[in-house]
């Protein structure tokens, strides 16, 4: 029952997108959606702080149950609504292990591939940036992408990130691949990742939860030369 569910989220937040994909996949799309503005620092509002004292989104409430931290929300949704919607965590031990591993590994993708260079640009003034540091960030980014390209290559065309089917691992990883594309990164150098991106971007749950402001404005070119 999604009418007693509230999700506080911000447009462009990968972690929020993870939770929203899972809500859609579990057939809970009629949750109460509370979009907050990062620019207006609404994630630090009393309303959000009441759910998440860290003043971070996603912040989620289901009746009297509160869950923060995107991976925790995703796991909670799968466990609580196991028998409805898409099965996001396989029962088979080997399959489940792989899905759990990739879901947790998606944090590496987020930090090293999606945000390695981006964070550096966002947090360091141009005059304080060094060529050496930028090269290091670029190297880390590409090494991480090669790892995931390898995962997909091994699984073959048309597969999802942890096997044949769409799982929690895809919900956790895809938002950060999409972030790279949004910021102008040329994904075609990684053909399996590029195919995977094309496959998943049109999935109904993904389309339904895409960052609204991304639809209205063209992609950036921040990462085009990375």
């Amino acid at each position, binding site marked *: 029952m999604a009418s007693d569910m509230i999700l506080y989220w911000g447009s462009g937040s990968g972690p929020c997108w993870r939770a929203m994909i899972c809500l859609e996949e579990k057939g809970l799309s009629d949750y109460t959606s509370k979009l907050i503005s990062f620019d207006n620092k609404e994630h630090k509002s009393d309303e959000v702080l009441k759910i998440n*004292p*860290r003043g971070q989104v996603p912040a989620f409430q*289901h009746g*009297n*149950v*509160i*869950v*923060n*931290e995107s*991976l*925790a929300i995703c*796991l*909670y949704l799968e*466990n*609580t609504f196991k028998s409805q919607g898409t099965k996001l965590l396989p029962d088979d*031990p*080997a399959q*489940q*292990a*792989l899905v*759990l*591993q990739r*879901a*947790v*590994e998606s944090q590496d993708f987020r930090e090293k591939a999606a945000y390695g260079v981006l964070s550096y640009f966002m947090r360091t003034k141009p005059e304080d940036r060094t060529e050496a540091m930028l090269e290091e960030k670029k190297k880390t980014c590409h090494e991480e992408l090669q*790892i995931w390209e*390898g995962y997909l290559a091994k699984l073959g065309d048309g597969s999802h990130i942890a096997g044949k089917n769409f799982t929690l691992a895809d919900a956790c990883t895809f938002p950060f691949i999409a972030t790279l594309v949004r910021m102008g990164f040329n994904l075609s150098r990684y053909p399996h990742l590029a195919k995977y991106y094309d496959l998943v971007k049109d999935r109904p749950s993904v389309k339904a939860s895409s960052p609204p402001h991304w639809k209205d404005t063209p992609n950036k070119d921040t990462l085009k030369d990375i």
Partner: protein
Amino acid sequence: MSSDMTLYWGSGSIPCWRVMICLVEKELSDYNSKLVSFEKKEQKSDEVMKINPRGQVPAFKHGDVVVNESMAICLYLENTFKNQGTQLLPDDPSQQALVLQRFMETQNIMDKAKALFFHRFRTKQEDWDQGYVGEKIKALAEELPLWENYLSQYGEGSFITGKDFTLADASLVPALAYLMRMKLPMKERFPCLASYYERVSDRPSVQSGWPPHWKDTPGYDYLKDV
């Protein structure tokens, strides 16, 4: 059956310690324990890379099932051995949500503490960036009161999510031990956490994973100013 389980681990690795706690809690203590030497870079050996191509520990195998990433291993163990040992993830939705959230939240402590540790460890004292250090100390000083507050809601003798030991404790206690190892003045600054830490440290599962070299050598005092 833990005779067909192998865990590659390193002394002082907090993620490895989490897994070792869970193995003992789930009554799987006779797993094959493979201690690697970080000094000799054994985590990059062929033997480990075969299990974890990232060349990281913990690297875990259960029969044919491979699981890497400590959070994934812990969740896998709880799901696969639900009916034996300690129940590390409650069935009650509200409690489960809290455990999953705190479990994921402990990463905040590790990220902030590690940032400080690595900066001071890798940089000569005369090159320590006082601005950066100050920033990191502040971040940790703002993180820990959240945990003190989480714990103080419950009475004396409780665990981090209430009356039972769960995944959240398996993840938190090693992180607190890491802070103590670096001389964080926990008793003075965070008395609830200190008393919790002292009590839960004695738990057999926690003792089983205590980094061997910590018993013989003092830690650095990098966190004494937090």
